């Protein structure tokens, strides 16, 4: 079965736009467990995008990367995070440095920034996925913003994982995926980072009775 490149490019764009949409949902969401669910949904869209790119370009190694994304980011990491949330017994994110409407406006501005930065590059590309590059950059910036705007360790971790999703989409969009060995290394890193951050969050809870990372700036003996 063959799909014309034009339709294929539109489908990839649609999937990346869905990723961006879930980013906004994560920024607007206050409940931690819903944030984790939204991250899992975003990763599922990422799997879809990667599988679509693999199908359209015939680069079979992207299928492996997509499957790994599915296992690690849709199943394992959300489970670990749910466990952490359960143990911490925090249902809500109450401490935010930036309130939700202002955060959304800033994210809107970040998306525009991403589009303006990539605008000179996009017409030079000839890949099917070139328009996704701007969206990938926007997702990285929003993930970064989430890490800054939230004070609790768990939501900062979600911000980090969203950034990683953006990077993966960017790699797929810019070069049809990195070499498989690099992808494997990145996935392993992300998994270990998520596990370590989970343990670190628990230690934080034990030490301060809170997962507010601003406590870490105060010196204690």
């Amino acid at each position, binding site marked *: 079965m063959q799909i014309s490149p034009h339709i294929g490019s539109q489908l990839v764009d649609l999937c*990346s736009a869905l990723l961006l949409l879930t980013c*906004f949902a994560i920024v607007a969401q206050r409940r931690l467990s819903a944030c984790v669910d939204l991250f899992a949904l975003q990763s599922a869209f990422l799997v879809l995008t990667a599988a679509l790119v693999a199908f359209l370009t015939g680069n079979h190694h992207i299928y492996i990367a997509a499957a790994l994304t599915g296992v690690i980011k849709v199943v394992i990491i959300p489970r670990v995070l749910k466990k952490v949330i359960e143990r911490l017994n925090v249902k809500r994110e109450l401490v935010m440095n930036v309130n939700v409407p202002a955060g959304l406006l800033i994210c809107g501005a970040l998306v525009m920034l991403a589009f303006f930065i990539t605008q000179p590059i996009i017409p030079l590309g000839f890949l099917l996925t070139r328009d996704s590059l701007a969206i990938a950059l926007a997702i990285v910036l929003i993930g970064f913003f989430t890490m800054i705007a939230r004070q609790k360790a768990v939501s900062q971790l979600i911000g980090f994982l969203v950034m990683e999703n953006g990077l993966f989409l960017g790699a797929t969009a810019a070069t049809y995926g990195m070499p498989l060995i690099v992808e494997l290394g990145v996935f392993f890193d992300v998994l270990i980072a998520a596990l370590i951050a989970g343990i670190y969050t628990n230690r934080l809870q034990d030490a301060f009775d809170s997962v507010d990372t601003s406590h870490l700036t105060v010196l204690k003996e």
Partner: protein
Amino acid sequence: MPSLIQSLLLVIAQAIVLLSVSPFLVGLIRKVKARFQCRQGASVFQPYADLAKLFRKQPVISSTASWIFPATPYILFASTLSAGLLVPTFLSQTPLNFAGNIIALVYLLALGTFFLILAGLDTGSAFGGMGSSREALVASLTEPAMILSIFAIALTAGSTNLSTIVHKTALLEGIVTDPSPHLMALAALFIVALAETGRVPVDNPATHLELTMIHEAMVLEYSGRYLALIEWAAGLKLAVFLSLVANVFAPWGIATTLTPSAMGIGLVVYLVKIAGLAVLIGTIECMFAKLRLFRVTDLLGVAFILALLGLLFFYILRS
């Protein structure tokens, strides 16, 4: 070009479709919710019986009410129905498309809301005033999001006329080269539709609890045929928004010519599409809790930002 008689018949046909389908949509949403809550639920045709009963009852009007109070149901019903006639339902070229574009549609709906807010204040009951104040908050927040999301679509089709937009999209002419603005605008318009029709994350249509009600608080003083007209108009508004979402974003199957067979298929496809959307809304109402009033601004903020991005994506990707 259809003749005058033909246009007139089409206008009447569209009015009949909208009027008859709107109580069904309300009944369908209630049925879906009932099934999700493991209840049998009333028949989907119950709202028709309710309307018939209310039309037979004698209305009671407060002695302190001014002319606004009895006039509002008629103004609301007429403005909502005329807004509905501007939206393509089963035929892509509405016969009244010369009469107004999307901006007229938005402000016809706003006219009804405005009079409903006035009527809520008119009788001087405490609930009415509270409902009006809340409705004014919600209406002022949804309007920018709605206008921007519709503009994002209007830009991709190159016209603010709804018939032209739907016709072009249905024939795959001038359809967007990038789906991202479309997706953003769809998400924004869907949130706006939930807010404007008083559905769960914003308002709960099944409640009579003073902490939660918005629309119900405004119409608490109405009875008899006035209440029937207001309920029917609320159903019509739902039908208008669902038609807008279904036909602007997925107009495939709609009749683009005036042949009877195309129109028959268009009607069936239209009914299936809006029934599907009604089931979706019923499902959403079961999955989410109503937001606190001051959290509604967050939700509508999301809609506004998404609509704004949809608009900007168009300019950035097209330039």
